[in-house]
């Protein structure tokens, strides 16, 4: 599972063409998430309420956050551009590429290009990542950030809110699909919770219309499963006679 999530093992084994751009893109995302985590932790360590006990961590975490953020954003932009090229030129992807997919990639490219570009090319005196994080925690409105970096932040926030409404949430869905759905091989043992769930489901009343199913909205799945459409049909024929 870890190998699959971090290094996209299936893609590497079965679809090498798309693996590297996808790996860049996803690994960049993980680094960006790690950068946010490190920046948050560094900020927490630097809070005055903790005294000076953790202040040394700030000096370790802040450069890690900056490095991970920069590399992560660069990988995201590179990976997204590469994927965009595949999406627009590869005939194999044509039938399953929608306008929304192109938009999503452009959204990522714009947000993270602005973030990394805005940060690296920031004006002298503009806040560093650590200063920005501290300022955000303290609601310090005096913090100065560049326009491009600010636009990147706004876009990234919008992107974060947008992702759950798209199939891009697949990296979260993957946790559920990988084992629980794809190879769900928990045994249904007598008296288990799983058996209770199955029993409850057998009480549902389906409405499928094909005659052989025999569903009328009143019979349960259990009743349908214990019926025999051939003997019922035979009985109906005999009754007609």
């Amino acid at each position, binding site marked *: 599972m870890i190998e*699959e999530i971090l290094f*996209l093992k*299936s*893609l590497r*084994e*079965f*679809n090498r063409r*798309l693996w590297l751009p*996808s790996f860049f893109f996803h690994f960049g995302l993980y680094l960006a998430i790690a950068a946010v985590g490190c920046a948050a932790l560094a900020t927490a360590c630097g809070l005055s309420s903790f005294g000076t006990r953790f202040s040394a961590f700030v000096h370790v975490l802040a450069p890690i956050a900056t490095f991970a953020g920069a590399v992560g954003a660069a990988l995201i932009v590179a990976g997204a551009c590469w994927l965009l090229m595949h999406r627009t030129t590869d*005939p*194999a*992807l*044509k*039938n*399953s*590429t*929608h*306008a*929304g*997919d192109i938009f999503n990639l452009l959204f990522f490219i714009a947000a993270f290009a602005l973030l990394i570009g805005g940060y690296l090319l920031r004006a002298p005196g503009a806040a560093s990542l650590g200063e920005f994080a501290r300022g955000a925690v303290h609601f310090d409105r005096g913090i100065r950030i560049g326009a491009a970096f600010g636009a990147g932040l706004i876009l990234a926030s919008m992107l974060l809110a947008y992702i759950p409404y*798209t*199939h891009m*949430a*697949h990296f979260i*869905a*993957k946790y*559920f*699909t*990988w084992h629980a*759905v*794809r190879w769900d*091989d928990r*045994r*249904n*043992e007598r008296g288990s919770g799983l*058996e209770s769930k*199955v*029993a409850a*489901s*057998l009480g*549902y*009343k*389906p*409405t*499928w*219309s*094909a*005659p*052989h*199913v*025999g569903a009328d909205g009143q019979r349960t*799945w259990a009743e*349908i*499963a*214990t*019926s*025999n*459409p*051939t*003997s019922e049909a035979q009985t109906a024929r005999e009754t007609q006679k």
Partner: protein
Amino acid sequence: MSGKINLRDVSRQDSEPLIHVENEELMPLPAPLESPEKDRAWAALTEQCRSRYECGLDDTCAVNIPKPKTREEEEQLVARFLSGLDKLFDKENNWTFLEPLLLTMEHCTGCQTCAESCHIFEASGRNELYRPTFRSEILRRLYFKHVRRGALLSAWQHGSIQLNWPLVARLIELSYRCNLCRRCAQSCPIGCDNGLVARELRKLFSQEMGIAPREIHENGSMLQLKAGSSTGMTAEIVKDNVAFVDEDISERTGIAVHTPWDVEGADVLLIHNAGEIMAWPENPGAFALILTMAGVNWTMSSELAAYDAINYGLWYDDAQFARVALKHMEAARKLGVKRIVIGECGHAHKALCVIADRVLTGDLNIPRESYLPLLRDIVLSGKIKFAPTRNDFPVTLHDPCNMVRLMGVVEPQREILRALCPQFREMEPHGVDNYCCGGGSGFAIMSGNNFPDWRFHVSGRKKLEQILNAFADCPGPETPKYLCAPCSNCKGQFRDMITYYGLWQKSRIFYGGLVELVVNAMADVKPGFIDWEWR
């Protein structure tokens, strides 16, 4: 070549096929079929078939959907499809497979990793129509538009497609261009299951519209529920036939065999695919001999449907599936057996061991298992003496998808073959990465129109390549070779495909089960149990 089709072509109003495949476009095969000229020509669909049935998908016709006579009839059929579509995504109607289906609908990225794993797509010469995502993408667009009631924004995000009768008719046929082998699901980086999509579409068509191939519905699950077996054998006939098999096996092996029926409290209830009894009687005979010699306390059941392990509902219909599974379990409960053991039938393995596990409750949930671990234990126990030199001919093993990829039973059969077959060689790839025989999901018993041409040229092609490669060191007819296929359905496909390509005459490729190899190697049995007579 018309493989470069657009998804929207499925809504085309004309009844002309979307694609046509030539032998030259198919994946090349090794010798002796190395050039397209050596390949068989396809039979064309008859004019009668084209005029009566919907044949607008490709070169063949599997389901025989009568053409609607009026526009109103078309509209009614589309309305029924839409009604079924809603039910497919409704928990009360589809609690069994709703979760994986929804995840597949909502989280596929369209990366096409599944296509790289699909034997049908590869063998067809990478024809767009046979991409695993082609049918899924149609269903996905319909789902977002008609189930999620998506409007313009949804169409922009997920794509759009025009729903009409030609689309529904083509989708029905397209749901029968997948073997449901789930190799694609195994390789999907997300865990989406395009095999399940094909199966769920079949379910919609069967359970809502009453549309399914005659071979698997009327002559399959319905006949099994009526007569007791899809072969049409009633309990009296099957007992007679098995008595004849016992007699024949006793004579051929020199060891008296008697199949016990309806023994209460037996350790093992053995259920065969009843097709074995009619088409390959040496298989149930070999089982009876092995279990008898190993001293296993076993029985067969003469209850309705319980002497035939098949469960075709697995491929297309939940109601039919549950009914047959319950018949099997009720027979086991009635006899009070300790466990059910499934014979050489792949889909029966998955049906009763895996899928039924989410249907059975209480005292119906009796342990069920594959025959393979039991057979391995018997062979390696030392209870029976073996002379592996009797099996000194090239043997390769086909991994039935349902037993191997979908249940994880990989090693027992190999331990047996390594012990008993000195010239055993693997196909590549094998185990859970195997390729389907091409007859999976009902195709092996579907022989209407020119469908066999499609299943040998396309769905069976990758496996045929594997078989020929496995015997590449001894290709000629002077060396008899054994293709071990421990599954009735796969054997049916191999029998037909080897015959179709004349490979018994050209290469002396024989096929058979695993238990036949075990009996052939028994030291106390008359030599020559495998008779190398083509059947």
